[in-house]
C-alpha cells in the first residue's frame, strides 16, 4: 500500500511533466472514447428502431401458430383452439400484452388497381399498444372494435390504389376450403408508418369481420405475446410453452424474423469490433507517449533502481501512469458522449435519406441510445487493452540496469 502511494504520486507528477504531450494524448483518448460511445449509441438506436419496427410489424416477442403456418401462412393452418379457449388460457397468465388475430395473404382491389397485401384481423382495443400504428395519427379513424366493418390501410397503399378515406375497396383471400372469400370494405382510415414498406403491405380489419368473411368461426391464425424487453424474451417463451400443448408451434421473434435476430447479434459484435478498432488506433499514441516518457527518464529510473526500488516498482509506476492517463481520458470521453447524445435522444431526422435507410429496414428518424452496457464495454475494453499496450514500455523500463541507466548519455 505504501509503495502504491509513492508510485501513484510519482506517476501523477510525471504525467504532468510534459503538459502539452499529456494534453494531446488526453485529447486523443477522449475523442476516441467519445467516438466509440457516440457511434455505438447511433448504431444501437438504429438497430433498436429496426427491431422495434420489425417486432411491431410481426408483431410480438413470442408467437403461437399452427405447426405448418410458417411454411404456408394461409387460413387453412388455423390454431387448433377457439379464440374463446385462447382468451381463457392467455388472459389470466399475466403477460404485459397479448392478442390473437387472423393474419393471411390477400389481394386488395380498388377501382383503379390491385395489390397483394397481408391482411390482419385484429382486436383494436387489445392491440392499441402492440402494433406500429399510432391510432391518434390515423387519417380518418382507426378500427373501433372486432366487428368494425371498415378497413385501415397505409398512405402509400392508398396512393398506389388511388383511393382515400370513405372509398370502397374489395379484399379477397381464401377460406379453409380453398374457395374464394371476398368482401367489400369502406376505407375508414389511412395510417403512417416509420417504414414505408409497412404502409404498402399491411391492411387492418376487425377480427370478427374477417372471421366471418373467411368462414373460420371462432378461430385465429396466431397468438402474440409481448414482454418487457425484446432482448430477453425467455421468460415469456417459457410461460407460453407451459400454457399450450404440442398441437401448436411456439417461436421467439428472433426465430420468426431471422434477419432481425441475426442483426441484433451482429450489431452486438459490431459494437465490440468498433470499440477495439478505435482503441487500436489510440494505442499507437498511447504506447508512443509512454515510450517517450520512459526514454526521457532513463537516468531517473536508473537512480530509483540504484536507491533500492525494485524492477516491479518501476513497472508499476509506468502502468499507473498509463492507467491515470486512460482513466482521465475515459472520464472526459464519457462526459463528452453524454453531453452530445442526451440532446439528440429526441431523434435525428434523416428523412433526406429515408429511402436509403428503408432499404435495410431502418426508419428515417434515428434515436441515439446511450446504453450502460455499451459505455461499460467501451471503458473496460480501453482499460484492459490500454493496460496490455502499456506492458511493453513498462517492462522495458523495469529491465534497465541501474548503472547503465544512470550513466546514459543523451
Amino acid at each position: 500500500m505504501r509503495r502504491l502511494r509513492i508510485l501513484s504520486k510519482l506517476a501523477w507528477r510525471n504525467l504532468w511533466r510534459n503538459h502539452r504531450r499529456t494534453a494531446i494524448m488526453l485529447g486523443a483518448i477522449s475523442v476516441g472514447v467519445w467516438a466509440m460511445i457516440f457511434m455505438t449509441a447511433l448504431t444501437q438506436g438504429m438497430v433498436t428502431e429496426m427491431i422495434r419496427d420489425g417486432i411491431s410489424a410481426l408483431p410480438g416477442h413470442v408467437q403461437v401458430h399452427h405447426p405448418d403456418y410458417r411454411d404456408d401462412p394461409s387460413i387453412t393452418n388455423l390454431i387448433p383452439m377457439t379464440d374463446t379457449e385462447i382468451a381463457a388460457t392467455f388472459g389470466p397468465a399475466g403477460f404485459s400484452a397479448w392478442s390473437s388475430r387472423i393474419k393471411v395473404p390477400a389481394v386488395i382491389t380498388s377501382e383503379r388497381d390491385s395489390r397483394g397485401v397481408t391482411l390482419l384481423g385484429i382486436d383494436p382495443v387489445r392491440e392499441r399498444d402492440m402494433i406500429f400504428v399510432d391510432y391518434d395519427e390515423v387519417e380518418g379513424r382507426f378500427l373501433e372494435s372486432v366487428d368494425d366493418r371498415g378497413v385501415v390501410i397505409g398512405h402509400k397503399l392508398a396512393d398506389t390504389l388511388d383511393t382515400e378515406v370513405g372509398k370502397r375497396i374489395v379484399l379477397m383471400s381464401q377460406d379453409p376450403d380453398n374457395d374464394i372469400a371476398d368482401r367489400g370494405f369502406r376505407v375508414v382510415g389511412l395510417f403512417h408508418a416509420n417504414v414505408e414498406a409497412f404502409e404498402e403491405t399491411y391492411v387492418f380489419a376487425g377480427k370478427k369481420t374477417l372471421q366471418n368473411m373467411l368462414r373460420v368461426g371462432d378461430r385465429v391464425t396466431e397468438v402474440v405475446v409481448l414482454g418487457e424487453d425484446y432482448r430477453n424474451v425467455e421468460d415469456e417463451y417459457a410461460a407460453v410453452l407451459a400454457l399450450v400443448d404440442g398441437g401448436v408451434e411456439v417461436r421467439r421473434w428472433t426465430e420468426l424474423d431471422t434477419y432481425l435476430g441475426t442483426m441484433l447479434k451482429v450489431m452486438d459484435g459490431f459494437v465490440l469490433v468498433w470499440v477495439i478498432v478505435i482503441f487500436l488506433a489510440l494505442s499507437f499514441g498511447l504506447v508512443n507517449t509512454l515510450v517517450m516518457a520512459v526514454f526521457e527518464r532513463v537516468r531517473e529510473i536508473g537512480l530509483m533502481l540504484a536507491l533500492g526500488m525494485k524492477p516491479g516498482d518501476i513497472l508499476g509506476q509506468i502502468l499507473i501512469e498509463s492507467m491515470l492517463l486512460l482513466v482521465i481520458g475515459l472520464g472526459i470521453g464519457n462526459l463528452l458522449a453524454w453531453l452530445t447524445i442526451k440532446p439528440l435522444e429526441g431523434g435525428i431526422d434523416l428523412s433526406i435519406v429515408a429511402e436509403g435507410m428503408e432499404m435495410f429496414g431502418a426508419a428515417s428518424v434515428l434515436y441515439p441510445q446511450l446504453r450502460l452496457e455499451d459505455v461499460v464495454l467501451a471503458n473496460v475494453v480501453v482499460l484492459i487493452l490500454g493496460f496490455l499496450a502499456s506492458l511493453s514500455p513498462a517492462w522495458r523500463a523495469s529491465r534497465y540496469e541501474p548503472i547503465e541507466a544512470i550513466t546514459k548519455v543523451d
Partner: protein
Amino acid sequence: MTAVRCVDLCKTYRQGDQDIKALDHLSLEIGEGGFVCLSSPSGGGKTTLLNAIGGLDKPDQGEVYIAGQRIDNLSKGELAELRLRRIGFVFQAYNLIPVLTARENVEFVMQVQGVPAADRGRKALDILAEVGLEGLEDRRPAEMSGGQQQRVAVARAIVSRPALVLADEPTANLDSKTSDGLMELFTELNEHHGTTFVIASHDQRVMGYAKRIVRMLDGRIVDDIQQDAA
C-alpha cells in the same frame, strides 16, 4: 567486523575494439566505521569498484561481501533490497528525482522502506536543516543550484542512517565552502554513528578528511595509506 570485502575482482569493458581493464584482480577490505577515499586518475577504476561494492555492477570475476554477506551472486530484487536497507548512495550528478521536492526526495528512500509518514517527515526536515537547506524543503531540483541539489542527495543518502555510504565524486559540483561542510558532516556521521564511508574522489580536500586513502591505477590498488583525519 568487516563492512566491505572484495576478493580478486576483475571487470573488463569493451571500448571500440579495445578491452579496458577497469578492475584487475583487485582485493580490498574495509572495516566497520572506515572512512576510505578511493583515488585514481580518470579511468583508474574507482567508480567501477564503488559500483561493484554497491551491487550496481557485477564483476566478471571475484567476490564482494557487505557485512559478511556475499552480494555479487544476488538477484536484482535482492540487490535492490540490500541497497534500500543498508547502503546510502551519493552520485556525481542526476541525483534527484525531478518531480519531487527536496523534502520528498529525502523522504523517498524512507517511504520505500516503509517508515511512517510523521517519522520520515520529521527526519527529512531535520537532515535538510543539518545540511544547511532549511527553508528550501519545498523546492524542486530545477529550482535549486547544483550545490543545493548535491546536499539534498547527501541528506537522502544519510537520513535513514545506513551502515555504509558510497559516494562518487560528491564534491565535484560544490564550491570549497560547501565541500568542507559536506565532508565535516560525513566525518561527524562516521565518528558519532559509526557509518562506513567509501568515497571515490580525486579531490584533495576529500582525501584530507579520509582516514584511509586507496590509490588505484588501471584497476589495481597501487597504494593504501592510513592517515589521521584532518
